[in-house]
């Protein structure tokens, strides 16, 4: 549904987006991750036709956004960053305006407004002026505007920014629900969001895509992925290290904390895929030495580790 090919944007000498390519099909929810200023918003603005690309092509439902913008925009709903709204209108009036511009009239318009208001929990503020709304309601009004025409493609720039935890949860489940029948792109820098809602994630840094995969694939890139954390009481850390060192499936053992009486050690696997055997071997060693084991936990890998490792370039001390 969306095809982005070699997209670049420069503002003067600064390359905001540099040769970005990806595609998105119906039923996919793509999380767009990256540090501030990585080029997330710029990319989304080019996809939605707000700014023209310096180079490259965006195709939305087969329409080139630069050459056939009206057709492309018809297929998309867009929630810009910080959800700008016409503050002099009521929620209903605003949604009515958006529906009308999109060619929805009469009874269909009333239906579309009702549907969007229901989906975004706006009933209580329906007739209220936008400038009297709290941030959460404003954001949801922006969201309602993006889905008013039930678009096939949704592009959202930080849709959960500024919402409280309950609202965040609500918006995520809304995205998940809609993702079954639409193609959705949303940007965020909240990593749990990607795990909670996305089928795929792209990490972008300094205008370039640095990772592209399912959340699980990305997590597997973490150094800690598939390692085991063992917490043991009443044993010296050196004894733990030596004991676990005998496990043949392990590449390396590190002591995470050593605060008497508890020692916490981390055992890294030698090769990926053999993690079941590694767990069994750790159990065997613990039983052999009669260790008082509090906990053995397998690490899934952390998205924030992966994120930090590949995007640290601009915050690293020079």
């Amino acid at each position, binding site marked *: 549904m969306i095809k982005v090919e070699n997209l670049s944007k420069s503002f003067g000498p600064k390359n905001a987006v540099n040769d970005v390519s990806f595609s998105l099909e119906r039923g996919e929810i793509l999380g767009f991750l990256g540090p501030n200023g990585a080029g997330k918003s710029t990319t989304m603005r080019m996809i939605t036709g707000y700014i023209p690309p310096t180079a490259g092509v965006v195709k939305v439902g087969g329409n080139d956004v630069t050459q056939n913008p009206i057709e492309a925009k018809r297929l998309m709903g867009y929630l810009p960053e910080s959800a700008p709204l016409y503050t*002099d209108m009521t929620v209903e009036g605003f949604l009515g305006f958006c529906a009308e*511009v999109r060619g929805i009239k009469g009874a269909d318009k009333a239906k579309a407004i009702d549907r969007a208001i229901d989906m975004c929990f706006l009933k209580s503020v329906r007739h209220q*002026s936008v400038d009297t709304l709290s941030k959460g309601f404003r954001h949801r009004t922006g969201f309602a505007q993006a889905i008013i025409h039930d678009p096939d493609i949704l592009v959202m720039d930080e849709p959960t920014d500024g919402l409280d935890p309950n609202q965040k949860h609500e918006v995520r489940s809304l995205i998940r629900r809609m993702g079954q029948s639409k193609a959705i792109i949303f940007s965020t820098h909240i990593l749990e969001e990607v795990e909670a809602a996305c089928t795929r994630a792209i990490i972008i840094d300094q205008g370039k895509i640095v990772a592209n995969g399912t959340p699980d694939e990305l997590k597997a890139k973490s150094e800690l992925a598939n390692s085991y954390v063992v917490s043991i009481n009443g044993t010296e850390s050196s004894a733990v290290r030596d004991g676990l060192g005998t496990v043949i499936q392990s590449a390396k053992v590190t002591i995470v904390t050593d605060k008497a009486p508890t020692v916490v050690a981390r055992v890294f696997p030698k090769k990926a895929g053999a993690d079941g055997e590694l767990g069994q071997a750790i159990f065997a060693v613990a039983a052999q030495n009669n260790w008082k084991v509090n906990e053995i936990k397998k690490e899934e890998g952390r998205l924030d580790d992966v994120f930090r490792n590949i995007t640290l370039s601009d915050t690293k001390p020079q």
Partner: protein
Amino acid sequence: MKSIWTITKRELGGYFNSPVAYVFLVIFLLMTAAFTFLIGQFMDRNQATLQPFFMWHPWIYLFLVPAVGMRLWSEERRQGTMELLLTLPISLWHCIIGKFLASWIFLTLALVMTFPIWITVNYLGDPDNSVIVASYIGSFFLAGAYLSITSMTSAFTRNQVISFILSVVICLFLVLCGWPPVTDVVETLAPRSVVEFVAAFSVMPGIEQFNNGQIDSRAVIYFLSVIGFPLFATNVIIRGLRA
């Protein structure tokens, strides 16, 4: 076409959803009345003509039209709604024209609300109503010309005050460059051909023709181009902002 009207309706609603519209209408009517009766000496003239009413319009509009139009684009830029508007499936031209029309309709409404003075002059005497109609048409075009310039200056900046000042200055130039008291002085300093060239840009000759009851096609074309060019410039500026 439909989307232009949708934009126009929203903008017009924007005026009437806030006190701006009412404040403007009251001030406009008070000012036109004050200028006509107090300074224009409408009563003392003892003439059945609205000339002392229309002669002030280029000056009253000079401040009131930029006040109406200054928010057209600068507010969209400041609030970030421009991103919303321009990602809707409508062309930039439709947005520019829709917004411009909304303000022009609003100004026309203000102009129409001066009708009591027309009734008054007809009640008191026997004026040439064709001259009055022509003058109203001239005033309508003048408001459009100032407004179009304001649309352009409001696309320049996200600050309404800057937009206001810029448009007042440009409109003032268009008035003064062809206003005899100024051109007479300038003629002593610059060659006559230069003065005439610059004076050709002025709104004043056209307005005087309308106020004399002539609807000259050249004046109409002049005003349509003074409306068209800044709207075109608005388009270029907004495109430039995004590039």
